[in-house]
């Protein structure tokens, strides 16, 4: 990718397109592990700052005297072509940082909500969040060793996941499994886009 020389030669450098997929879920559910399983770089961390007063999201009583809070987001990168890069962003684990999620999902292809079947209740907040947003998302059940194996239908019922939201089993440590999760996200995004284009869901016939 020799942009420098092409610019000097006066040629128009090729436009690079970047896409992003958001990996959401509760604290410690394996988001960074999932990102690291497919990323070409060690997951990086970017930090955002905010004031406790300005955003009203930080419980200042828990950290006396502390006026700023740092929200960390881990992310990875997959360079697919000279002109196409896919970024995978993990959401901040703490649910009090919702406003940061808004920035992350803006312009995203889609999202996967990672669920730990040992702590299903942690998934309520992330699922609620996506329920009210215009972003295609799927649910990925992370199957930890020794985790109680619920049937996907049981989890769907327990978490009241709408029937149009796809659900997959995965192992966030394994590249092949994570690849499949991402493929499902993109396929679901395509199906959603087609449905929007035709003015309704294709399944509804007659």
């Amino acid at each position: 990718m020799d942009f420098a020389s092409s610019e000097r030669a006066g040629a128009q450098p090729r436009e690079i397109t970047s896409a992003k997929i958001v990996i959401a879920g509760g604290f410690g559910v394996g988001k960074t592990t999932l990102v690291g399983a497919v990323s070409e770089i060690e997951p990086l961390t970017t930090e955002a700052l905010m004031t406790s007063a300005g955003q009203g999201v930080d419980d200042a009583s828990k950290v006396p005297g502390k006026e700023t809070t740092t929200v960390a987001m881990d992310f990875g990168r997959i360079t697919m072509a000279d002109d196409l890069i896919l970024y995978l962003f993990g959401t901040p684990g703490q649910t009090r940082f919702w406003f940061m999620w808004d920035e992350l999902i803006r312009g995203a292809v889609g999202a996967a909500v990672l669920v730990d079947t040992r702590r299903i209740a942690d998934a309520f907040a992330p699922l609620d969040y996506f329920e009210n947003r215009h972003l295609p998302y799927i649910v990925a059940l992370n199957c930890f060793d020794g985790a109680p194996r619920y049937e996907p239908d049981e989890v769907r019922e327990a978490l009241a996941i709408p029937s149009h939201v796809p659900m997959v089993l995965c192992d966030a440590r394994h590249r092949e499994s994570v690849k499949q999760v991402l493929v499902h996200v993109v396929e679901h995004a395509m199906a959603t886009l087609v449905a929007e284009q035709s003015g309704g869901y294709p399944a509804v016939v007659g």
Partner: protein
Amino acid sequence: MGQPQDPRGNLVRPYAVTRGRTEPRRDIPIEAVLVASQAAVQEARFAGHDKYRIAILCEAKAQSLAELSAHTRLPLGVARVLVADMVADGLLSLHSAAPKKGFTERMDLLERVLSGLRKL
């Protein structure tokens, strides 16, 4: 009694590198990719330490605002102000800043991402 506390608190310190500005000259998505030419790197020598570092990173490899923030250890908001300045000053070129709008454009992107994932 000491000085009254600045109501902006500790946020002032990280934004010292932007001379206190917290609003970027233009919005830059976290995943938008930035590229610098060799000539721009030379010019950025005189733009200050942080902007020079950013230019060097973007000449070595096209990278996103998020990566620049991570590599320079500058908070995202600070990196965004600097990068927006550099784009305005012609030191960096900004790629894919506009969201894909039309059906065909969006579907083409999804298809390319899908085929890229399958090839992994």
